[in-house]
Structure formats: structure tokens, C-alpha cells
């Protein structure tokens, strides 16, 4: 029974990873690609580590896999945010069908700080 559940978790995680790779190939611009790559791949890693916990078991493995899941879910958004910030500062072109760019004119390109002056004007 546990073997079936672990297989389901493993295959679901690898399908999520495949979807993230598909997204990074098919999406039109850096930010949408990042949205596919970070979230789906960290979720897939979490599911596969749950499969490791179920299949192998033991206190050390469960604690290690759990800590790895927490580490991945804490660091993947930070790294993704830093790449997105760098891409925005470099002026990477957005998709032509982008509806709204809320960060426009709000970044100080010299001091690399974010302001909300546009609202108070």
C-alpha cells in the first residue's frame, strides 16, 4: 500500500517537473518563464521528497527530507525574486500582450531602490 502511494507521489512530482520544463520552453517572456520554472519545480521536488520519506522511512531520512523540503521552499522564491529584479533592472523586454507594468518608473535606477511616489502625485 505504501509502495503504491510512494509511486503516485514520485510520478506526480516528476510530472510537475516536466511541466515546469515545458513552461520554460513555451512561455513568451522572462517573468512568465520564471513563474513556471520556480513554482512547479520546487513543488515537484517536494512531492518527490515525500515519496522518499514514504518509501525508505526511518527517523533520519524523514527529518532530512523534511528539512530539505523546507530549505527548497524557503530559498527558491528568494532566488527567483533576485533574478526577476535583475532582469527588470536590465530592461528585459516584456511580452507584447502584457496588460499592466506596475513597476514602471518606480525603480530608482541609480540607487536601486523602490519608491511609491507616483501614487502621491
Amino acid at each position, binding site marked *: 500500500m505504501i*509502495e*503504491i502511494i*510512494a*509511486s503516485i507521489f*514520485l*510520478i506526480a*512530482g*516528476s*510530472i510537475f*517537473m*516536466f511541466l*515546469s*520544463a*515545458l513552461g*520554460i*520552453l513555451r512561455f513568451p517572456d*522572462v517573468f512568465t*518563464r*520564471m513563474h513556471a*520554472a*520556480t513554482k512547479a*519545480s*520546487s513543488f*515537484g*521536488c517536494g512531492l*518527490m*521528497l515525500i*515519496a*522518499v520519506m514514504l*518509501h*525508505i522511512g*526511518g527517523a*533520519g*531520512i524523514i527529518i*532530512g*527530507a523534511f*528539512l*530539505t523540503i523546507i*530549505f*527548497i521552499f524557503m*530559498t*527558491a522564491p*528568494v*532566488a*527567483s525574486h*533576485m*533574478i*526577476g*529584479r*535583475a*532582469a527588470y*533592472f*536590465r*530592461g*528585459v523586454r516584456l511580452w507584447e500582450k502584457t496588460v499592466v507594468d506596475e513597476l514602471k518608473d518606480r525603480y530608482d*535606477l541609480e540607487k*536601486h531602490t523602490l519608491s511609491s511616489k507616483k501614487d502621491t502625485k
Partner: protein
Amino acid sequence: MSYSLIEYAAFFSMLLIVLSLIITFIRLVLGPSLPDRVVALDLITMLTVGFIISYIILTRESVYLIAVMVVALIAFLGTVAIARYLEKRVLK
């Protein structure tokens, strides 16, 4: 030699991850801008983590869980370092 269900699942997930690696490598080669390539490299390290996890399940060698942690840490540090470098040399 017959395989059990979990071993078939591990083979299938390894196959899917290798396909994903090929697709991500296409984006790494094509990627029009430098941040595209950084995102693709980040995804490649995450896929490597997934491949090592499939290998753990296939062989029951739980030692490689430490390798998973180390690869995840190096992926985070490398991505943050490249992102800071990209941000500091903004093209005018």
C-alpha cells in the same frame, strides 16, 4: 529479473526528468537574454535534484539525501550570486 512497482515509477520519473533536461537545455541555448539563461540554469539544477531523488528511490541508498541538500544549497548560492552580478552591471 522482475521489477517492483516503485522501481517502474522511478524509471518513469527518470525518463521524464531526462526529457525535461533536454527541453531546458534548448531554452538555455536559445534564450534571447541573459536572465533567461540564468532561469534555465536554475531549473537544470532543480532537475538534477529530482534525478538524484529518483536514484535514491531506485537503489535505496539514502546517503545521497545529503547530496540533494548540497546541490540545492549550491543552486541557491549560485543563482543569487549571478543575479547580484547581473544587477550591478546594468546596461545603460
